[in-house]
């Protein structure tokens, strides 16, 4: 059954990525947007690998599997886009944003605490270490998502227009954590199903929501 969930996620991410390619790679677009589309693409690749591994092998290896790199890669793309491109525009490093920066730390701290709880419950083993690595990148990305969600817009609506995207990304990060928790604590299947449906919805909505926000930059 997890094969079908994984397949659904692959298809959703694939549709999102395909739409993103069509909208932002045909013509010259902002690198920021392209990075996010690539992030969705990376998710698609990771999910595709997991699906195929289920199909071919019937099971997923404990500890590290290449599918994890899909999550890591996608959040790195999101992080890279925010940290490399957007953050320097919306945050000039002045003390007036200090409070925002501190509040934004709540996101990575929450992720860190969840991992610590998992490590305490299940002990340190290869699985928990790899979950930790996955969560590290997730935490890095979620810091900027939260920061850009709450930061005062001083750049003529640049960040305000993509707040819904940041909210969506934060939601996706939360769903990824829930997916890990569902696996660790063997949640009932319907929980995994709900998480999967929400993730599919988010993956489908990523690019259109971003596109709507980006349009405001030019209008």
């Amino acid at each position, binding site marked *: 059954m997890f094969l079908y969930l994984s397949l659904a996620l692959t298809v959703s991410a694939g549709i999102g990525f395909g739409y993103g390619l069509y909208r932002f790679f045909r013509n010259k677009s902002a690198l920021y947007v392209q990075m996010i589309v*690539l992030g969705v693409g990376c998710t698609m690749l990771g999910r595709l690998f997991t699906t*195929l*591994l289920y199909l071919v092998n019937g099971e997923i290896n404990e500890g*590290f*599997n290449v599918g994890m790199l899909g999550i*890591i*890669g996608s959040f790195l793309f999101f992080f*890279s886009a925010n940290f490399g491109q957007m953050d*320097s525009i919306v945050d000039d490093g002045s003390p007036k944003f200090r409070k925002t920066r501190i509040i934004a730390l709540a996101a990575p701290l929450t992720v860190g605490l969840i991992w610590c709880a998992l490590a305490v419950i299940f002990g340190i083993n290869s699985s928990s270490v790899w979950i930790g690595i996955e969560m590290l990148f997730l935490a890095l990305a979620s810091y900027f998502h939260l920061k850009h969600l709450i930061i005062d817009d001083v750049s003529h609506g640049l960040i305000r227009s993509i707040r819904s995207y940041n909210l969506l990304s934060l939601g996706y990060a939360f769903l990824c954590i829930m997916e890990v928790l569902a696996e660790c604590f063997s949640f009932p299947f319907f929980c995994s199903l709900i998480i999967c449906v929400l993730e599919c919805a988010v993956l489908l909505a990523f690019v259109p929501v971003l596109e709507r926000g980006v349009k405001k930059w030019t209008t």
Partner: protein
Amino acid sequence: MDNLTYIVFIAMTVSLALILPLAEKKLRRLVIFMIVGIFSCLFVSELNNILLDSFHNDVFYVTTTITPVTEEIVKMLPILYFAIVINDDRHILIPNAFALGVGFALLENMVILIQNIETVTILWAFVRGFGSGLVHGICTVMVGWGISYIKKRRKFFFCGTFALLSAAIIYHAIYNLLVQSEYQYVGILLPILTYIPIVYLLRKKGIKPGGVSET
């Protein structure tokens, strides 16, 4: 014969090296990258052998989980070096990265050929030629694209390259997984289907083999 891999390596690289004094700069660079790719393959083959031993000869696990990581990292190093020390122009870097990937695939195919000399067929040659050549080429191009930001945008480089490396590893692992499964023909189609849009995109952006920029 144990050192057949080395013999093939020498035979290939020496022949290719003969082009170097005669070729003009761009072609020479491509050939050098191919030789580097061939050497990377030789290096990684021994590394993979050690890893295979440490994972109890589980070829399936190692080829779907471990070797994509080692191979992509080893292939990335020469491009990274070139970008840091010599030139980080994307129009030069990407075709050379592809040449490196193809060089890698060349030796890989040769080694697999000599290891399975009794079972290989014409179909096998086509499959390996297209599949392996394209997979290694595409993966190296992906990483090369990220590395091209090394001097222009440091923030992008560090995260973007790692993200692209992740994508390349997954792509490579998917190919390895498929060709060893009953869906091996899907695995063969995968790189071909990816190659066409990538070439279209690169052409559109004015990147051609040989490092000539149209823009």
